[in-house]
């Protein structure tokens, strides 16, 4: 299982949980599994073409997947994945 950190604005999908577990050999598979467990999450993270939305950063063990293999970045049990919006509201 991979540990997934959920940002505050997406916790409405996870029943308020800031950390959840999900499965998948790649980030893409994990996002699909997250959406099965918490329906609606994938649409917030990925656009209609399936790519990660521009303002969403996904980190695997602290590394931005855009500097790894994007959605094809491999995952293994015990990895930590963080979903972080690229911004913060209110100036």
């Amino acid at each position: 299982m991979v540990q997934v950190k959920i940002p505050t604005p997406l916790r409405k999908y996870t029943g308020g949980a800031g950390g959840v577990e999900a499965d998948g050999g790649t980030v893409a598979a994990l996002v699909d599994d997250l959406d099965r467990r918490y329906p609606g999450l994938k649409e917030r993270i990925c656009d209609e073409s399936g790519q990660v939305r521009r303002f969403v950063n996904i980190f695997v063990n602290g590394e931005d997947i855009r500097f790894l293999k994007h959605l094809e970045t491999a995952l293994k049990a015990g990895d930590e994945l963080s979903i972080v919006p690229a911004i913060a509201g209110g100036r």
Partner: protein
Amino acid sequence: MSTARAALARPTSPATGPLTVPSALQLVGNTPLVELRRVCDGVAPGVRIFGKLEGFNPGGSVKDRPALKMVEDGLARGALVPGKTILDSTSGNTGIALAMVGAALGYPVELVMPGNVSAERKKVVAAFGAKVIYSDPLEGSDGAIRLCRRILAEAPERYFKPDQYNNPANSLAHYETTGPEIWRQTEGRITHFVAAIGTGGTIMGTGRYLKAQNPDVQVIAAEPDDAFHGLEGLKHMATSIVPGIFHEEQLDRKIGVATDAAYDMVYRLGREEGLLLGQSSGAALLAALEVARGLSAGTFVVIFPDFGDRYLSTKMWLGWASFGGGRT
């Protein structure tokens, strides 16, 4: 261009002000209006849309106005005295503005920012000599607000906290400067005022002034269409700590804007109008266009809070190539 059109377009500009000023603080305000043309497709010829270029402020954003007013107010009340440090939570532009004002006046500044604000913002604040304390990126600006409250509670005697979310001087700055400027620049012809909401200070103060001159002026707010968004500086009010200075009942309309659409509008503003702006400008303009397309006449003023060079390192530009940005 008709004579009537030319007559209305009489923007003030930094170049028309005094030749010299005693400090950077005297450069705050009096920003120009620019008329938009190519990005206004679907808008009737009788509708004119102007952007107010707040990036011309010395700190580079609209936030110079409330930052200066809140600090002046603190000095006048005796809440800020020599030996105290200016402390606040901010995701960027207010931090830069407070750091600029603090540097100009000789007061130290400490800022609490979410760790995921853009690299440019972090560097600009550091260049003004301010100290930055980072809060958890996962908690967004509300996390910074909470951490700032804890720091203040531990040593309240050390700090002056402008508290932009709850300080009436924030919206008062706009009532006293942004509103009168727009009224003068449009020669009283403004029909619609549009701004995106972060603290709500701009829309509240400016809107109140404009409605006092003409109650028919429509005050329209743009906000992110979802709690999970990429519009730096803006708040989705339904899921945020609502600022004390924000009074939704004083708005005529509030329009939700999708992050991707706002980014694409920023691309268009650069390529079609020669204006490189931040994403909150794109969001506000989209809201304005939504209203403008249903009208046959009107004069819109849209707040463009800052220029886009502050966001060049951000993910906003990831879609640029597929948008056609790479073409020459």
